[in-house]
């Protein structure tokens, strides 16, 4: 199976530090041969590594403005987080009108689509047809995290499409009716705050084919938009109100449910312990759980420009000013549901076969015991345990641990020294001693070479991980 990921590494920029490996929530990164390497079937595109990389070597692949040339008619789908980038006095109308001046023929607010999802959520909560606790499906990074690390919670995920997808379908329909153009000539382009949404477009786990054609990052539209915002004459384009715009920040989606009993968790490292508690049924009394991989919600997305705290405040003000939007009538759920069944990922499993997996687990424990339990990351794995696992899987060597390597070298050197010491009276070495000394020297040489060749071998091997 091929895994598409928006998050990639810029090998030139990577200096091989170990910052990212210890922040990755799915232990998906290793440093091999002085460069980071992403294990594709574990990556959930949360963007955490992009945020922590001081060399800016982790990037999200998104589309450039050139994508607009592929279509006769282009519609921008701005994520609500875009509204928070410019200041609290810039209205949604201004931003949307700005988008129509930098190359788009029309706009459709994802915030408005979010209001449909909110309405549908309320309806289904009323009918009692949502799982308990119901987990929001809005953040694709969290949905993927669940499939990789918390598969027993898959059935708690509300199987509604992301607002982006809903917006795309609505925008497409409207454009077809308005222009008479066929689908292939209509470009629906998401303005994205995050790599995870890009992955949702290219390799959705919820729909067979996304109605979105591509995504340009908030970062890439920012300057162009800023250039036109000063003089743009705001047209009456904004339809979304307080409820939809608030989806950009933590708690916005929960507000839309009108529930009292909900939990809002932002930041992937905070999400993990809560999912773990849910898995143990410790939070069964919570009705709705809103998770976002990014701190503060989508305003904290890795591809935004504005500081997320400032942006959060902007969103609050803009949402307040937008007030109530036109009420959404009865929503038909079938237009908004997942087309595919979410499945558990086997990316973390040791083996398909239980007996083989247990054998590997025992070996891992044995290897791990020989390690210093410092989780220093110098070997390129996030923890001693992870290195032990890599060793048993055949993707690394125990000597990748610098402590084990050093101890080994020390033992060999000591033995050589002792042989020499026993002949300090000038007596000759026995043939056995000569053979042993040769053997030890050869081992030392091998260790020295191991480091380079071993690493290179692993780079090729890791692809199969």
């Amino acid at each position: 199976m091929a895994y598409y990921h928006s998050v990639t590494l810029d090998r030139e920029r990577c200096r091989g530090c170990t910052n990212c490996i210890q922040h990755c929530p799915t232990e998906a990164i290793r440093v091999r041969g002085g460069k980071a390497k992403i294990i594709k079937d574990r990556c959930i595109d949360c963007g955490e590594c992009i945020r922590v990389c001081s060399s800016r070597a982790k990037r999200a692949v998104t589309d450039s403005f050139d994508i607009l040339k592929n279509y006769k008619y282009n519609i921008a789908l701005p994520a609500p987080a875009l509204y928070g980038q410019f200041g609290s006095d810039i209205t949604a109308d201004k931003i949307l009108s700005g988008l129509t001046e930098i190359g788009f023929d029309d706009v459709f607010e994802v915030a408005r689509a979010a209001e449909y999802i909110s309405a549908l959520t309320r309806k289904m909560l009323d009918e009692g047809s949502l799982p308990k606790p119901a987990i929001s499906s809005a953040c694709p990074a969290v949905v993927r995290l669940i499939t990789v690390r918390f598969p027993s919670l898959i059935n708690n995920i509300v199987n509604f499409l992301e607002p982006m997808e809903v917006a795309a379908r609505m925008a497409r329909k409207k454009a077809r009716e308005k222009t008479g153009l066929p689908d292939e000539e209509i470009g629906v382009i998401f303005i994205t705050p995050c790599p995870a949404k890009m992955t949702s477009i290219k390799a959705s786990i919820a729909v067979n084919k996304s109605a979105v054609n591509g995504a340009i990052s908030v970062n890439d539209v920012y300057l162009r938009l800023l250039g036109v915002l000063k003089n743009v004459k705001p047209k009456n384009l904004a339809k979304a109100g307080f409820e939809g715009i608030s989806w950009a920040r933590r708690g916005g989606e929960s507000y839309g449910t009108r529930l009292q009993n909900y939990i809002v968790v932002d930041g992937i490292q905070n999400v993990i312990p809560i999912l773990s508690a849910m898995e143990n049924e410790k939070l069964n009394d919570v009705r709705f759980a809103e998770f976002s991989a990014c701190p503060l919600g989508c305003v904290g997305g890795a591809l935004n420009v504005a500081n997320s705290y400032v942006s959060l405040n902007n969103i609050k003000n803009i949402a307040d000013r937008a007030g109530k939007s036109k009420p959404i009538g009865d929503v038909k759920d079938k237009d908004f549901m997942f087309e595919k069944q979410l499945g558990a990922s086997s990316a973390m499993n040791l083996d398909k076969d239980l007996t083989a997996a247990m054998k590997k687990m025992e070996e891992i424990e044995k290897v791990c015991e020989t390690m210093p339990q410092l989780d220093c990351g110098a070997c390129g794995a996030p923890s001693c345990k992870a290195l032990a696992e890599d060793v048993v899987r055949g993707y690394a060597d125990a000597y990748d641990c610098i402590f084990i390597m050093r101890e080994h070298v020390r033992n060999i050197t000591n033995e050589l020294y002792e042989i020499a010491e026993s002949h300090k009276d000038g007596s000759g070495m026995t043939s056995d001693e000569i053979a042993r000394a040769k053997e030890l020297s050869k081992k030392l040489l091998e260790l020295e070479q191991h480091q380079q060749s071993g690493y290179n071998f692993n780079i090729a091997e890791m692809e199969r991980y």
Partner: protein
Amino acid sequence: MLKHYDISGTDFSVAGEASSNFKVVLKKLGISPDIVRRVSIAMYEAEINTVVHGGGGECDAEVLDGCVKIVFKDDGPGIENVELAMQEGYSTASDTVRELGFGAGMGLPNIKKYTDDMKIETQVGVGTKITLIVNL
């Protein structure tokens, strides 16, 4: 595949670590999500009991041919009336323990609910041994 855990009876902040560690092990082994969930809920409750009632002890958790078997042992006060202890809502937890959020009296009933078999061997003044079986 045997995992051994020492269960502290004094440090409440680490209560639950054995079960969360074993949960990770089961997931890595590729055990089905539903079984992982049942094992970890039952194991967590037994672990908490070993901490708050048993005063600490030890745990052996094992994946065998066909089942997961978990044994908790302690040298605590023992259980006077097992039938009573098994009832929903029955608890002898102290106020301090309740303040920590334990002591709803649902631990043993939940263990029964989520396991395929459970056995309690206990003697007042000597200690308690509880065995949990979940079939694969």
